[in-house]
């Protein structure tokens, strides 16, 4: 079996990202307090699972050349729906959770129907549902209601450990492998990539573009539902504001991980590195000594710098070449008016 990325630039990008991650770890181990402890590592994982899950499914969506801005809001809506099903409808939490996953998938299907059926741009559609889903969540809870006092068996999902590893980390690992296989080892991934490079080319190749796109958005909805479950289990509370801003964090991780926002190029392992780089940075900054305590506020700032540097670094050689080319091609036209 041989697998090759269509662009070696991807590999280079991932190597750079891995280096950044290693540097982060080394720096925070030296400068931070208790950064390398087992507890802190578990903490990093727990805090990044939801964004990680969303990034895992954001990656295929972006691979097709699309985007899903609604996943954070959908997380909130699903959390509220889950709470409603469990507390008000009296369902066992397991049934409520499965139903929530189904509703999440349904919401993803709604995005997909608008995108593939009406041929609306994904950015616009999911910008709409970004507001819509959050609005529904707030309407259901009247903006104040919060669901709490979930059973211990449920909270174990978000706070417990299996073999010393946080429960949700197991879920994440399984899903990361599944999504990796889906993207890199099945015809779904191949089709997403083709659609990302050229939607028309994929259509002319006889690929069922509509169905493949639908699958990507349904998957995103499903995963938002799952993220809502682990989120609720971690905090022990389901509120309408759950997962606010997570869609942008997920997109940041995917793009930082080398997936082209124009589609076609990217890898799931790159996305995982992107998630890790951001999670470690944000946790590590909070572990710095008191003299540098305001460094925690630097987290967002440094994430932005990381993203821009990583992307600009990739684009810089091409930009320089283009500039040089343009300068050489400056026209030399005789200024003539004697025509």
């Amino acid at each position: 079996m041989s697998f090759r990325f269509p662009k070696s630039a991807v590999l280079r990008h991932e190597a750079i990202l891995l280096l950044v991650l290693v540097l982060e770890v080394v720096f925070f181990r030296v400068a931070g307090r208790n950064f390398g402890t087992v507890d802190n590592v578990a903490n990093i994982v727990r805090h990044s699972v939801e964004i990680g899950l969303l990034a895992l499914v954001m990656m295929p969506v972006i691979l097709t050349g699309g985007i899903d801005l609604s996943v954070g809001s959908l997380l909130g809506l699903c959390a509220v729906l889950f709470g409603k099903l469990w507390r008000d409808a009296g369902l066992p939490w397991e049934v409520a959770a499965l139903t929530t996953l189904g509703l999440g998938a349904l919401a993803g299907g709604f995005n997909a129907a608008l995108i593939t059926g009406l041929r609306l741009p994904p950015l616009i559609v999911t910008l709409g549902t970004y507001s819509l889903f959050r609005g529904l969540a707030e309407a259901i809870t009247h903006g104040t209601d919060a669901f709490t006092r979930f059973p211990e068996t449920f909270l174990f999902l978000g706070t417990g450990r299996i073999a010393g590893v946080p429960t949700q980390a197991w879920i994440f690992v399984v899903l990361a492998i599944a999504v990796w296989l889906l993207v890199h080892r099945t015809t779904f991934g191949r089709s997403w990539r083709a659609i990302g490079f050229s939607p028309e080319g994929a259509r002319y190749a006889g690929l069922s573009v509509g169905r493949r796109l639908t699958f990507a958005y349904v998957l995103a909805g499903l995963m938002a539902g799952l993220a809502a479950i682990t989120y609720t289990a971690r905090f022990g509370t389901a509120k309408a504001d759950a997962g606010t801003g997570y869609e942008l964090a997920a997109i940041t991780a995917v793009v930082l991980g080398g997936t082209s926002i124009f589609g076609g190029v990217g890898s799931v392992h790159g996305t995982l590195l992107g998630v890790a780089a951001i999670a470690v940075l944000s946790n590590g900054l909070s572990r710095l000594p008191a003299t540098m305590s305001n460094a925690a506020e630097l987290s967002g700032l440094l994430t932005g710098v990381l993203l821009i540097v990583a992307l600009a670094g990739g684009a810089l050689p091409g930009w320089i070449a283009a500039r040089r080319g343009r300068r050489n091609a400056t026209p030399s036209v005789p200024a003539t008016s004697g025509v």
Partner: protein
Amino acid sequence: MSPLLKLTSVTKSFGAVRALKGVSFDLRAGEVHALLGENGAGKSTLIKVIAGAHQPDGGTLEIGGQRVTQLTPQAAHRLGIACIYQQPALFPDLKVSENIGLRLEPISLLRRINWAARRERAAQLLQRLGADISPDAEAGSLSMPEQQLVEIACALGAGARIVIMDEPTASLTQTEQHRLFAVVRDLRADGVGVIYISHRLDEIFALADRVTVLRDGESVGTRDVVARPSSVVRRVPNERSARPHPGPLPQGEEVSQPATGLTKHATFADPLTTILPLPAGEGRGQGERVLEPAGLSDSSPPPITESELIRLMVGREVSSIYPAAESEPGEVVLSLRELGCTASGVKKITLDLRAGEIVGLAGLVGAGRTELARVLFGLTPADSGEIQLNGHPVSIRSPQEAVTQGIAYVPEDRRRHGVILEMPIAHNLTMAIHPRLFPGTWLRFGAERTHALEAMHDLAVKAAGPDALGGSLSGGNQQKVALARWLATRPRVLILDEPTQGVDVGAKSEIHKIIRRLAQEGMAVLLISSDLPEVLGMSDRIAVMRGGEIVAMMPGGSDAHAVMAAALGQDRGES
């Protein structure tokens, strides 16, 4: 007097494709110089070189007697070259005066716009053209010809001395055409040189002073045109009432043209001179003949006739270089009955396609050939009529259904549709056979590689390997990959859309052999091509399309003139 524009031995290649192979061309002040040629002959490349959009690889370009190198579109504009395209490029939401102002006024952040002056100038320019267009109208609200007039006003305002018009009448009605012709004549009277591109011979005879014919990137001749007196058209017997007048009668400044030119050459000798386009279904050979006294002229070179023009355009290639059919066609595989698609303008197509048969679809760009292919492939599904495969009616609503039914379509635009340039050849080759090659959706890289190597070997694809990106291939090899992708589906019906366009000569003949071999193996092939010798040489039967309909069916090896005449057809201006 030096010509306004002079190109000498201009060459231009795109990768392996030589679009211009040493074209010389000149334009004098106060003339209308028609540029004629089949699709892909190099007309667009030539005008893009003149307009500064393409840099020539070799040869020289002189404007107003001065040699120009490194011409850019901005520089061409400054030098007084204006291009008027088929689709006017105005900002639809801006007023006419604003559109004109944007083109003509210098751009500066600090400059204040003098709205009154801008409006006044626009009004003057439009008035000069005799155009009844308000400068305050929104450009988007204007009709196509009105928008063209605005474009021409821009050209006038910029003081253009060289105006290039690319099929300006393609979307105009008869009356609008006449208006446009009058404007072109005014430009000519003002000493402007006009390069006029058109497929329509009647226009060329009504308007042009000289004509240059391009074929396969070469200029095959520049000849004088003498305006055809209206009497010729009127004198034709049996003239169909459907045929409108071809254009305003030559008058005014054309008086200077020797009106006797028409009779300077042997019209007699060539029956095609007066073959007028026939209505659908009439077939060929009924061309009306005009009996002209064949007065001979002592002046050289004689003005060109319509038949000579057609002959220059199609060339003299003989069909013997094409692989011949060696077996009889078999059963009818694909049968179309009154097939139509309103959205794409395909009308009442009735056609049978047999196993082992190559049916050529001839016609001009926009005749509906690609549109028909798109209907058959489910990209724009039919809304009337019937498609039968092996005698059974089928419904084809999507490309997936077409593939299931055994229909394959190798599209015209291979860079956008035929091959995904960013993906490896192997991925491209297996894209249409995912279910068969990858059962259970798991990719099998080994099987994929084997398939790719075999397919590349079969069609002799020249590439670094199956991992090379589609975009790294030459046009001919890309075309082979696009073709191989579909052959892998083992189709019953193979639709090929311009399979050799932009392909070098060697690869072209290889592709021809492959096509014939496929037919030989029992595939039914529908061959769309604007390359007339190719259609004539490759096809067992030829369907000529015009305006979304099949207007003539002819046997393979038919006379190029007859096919061209049917394809050129009646005046397309009446919409």
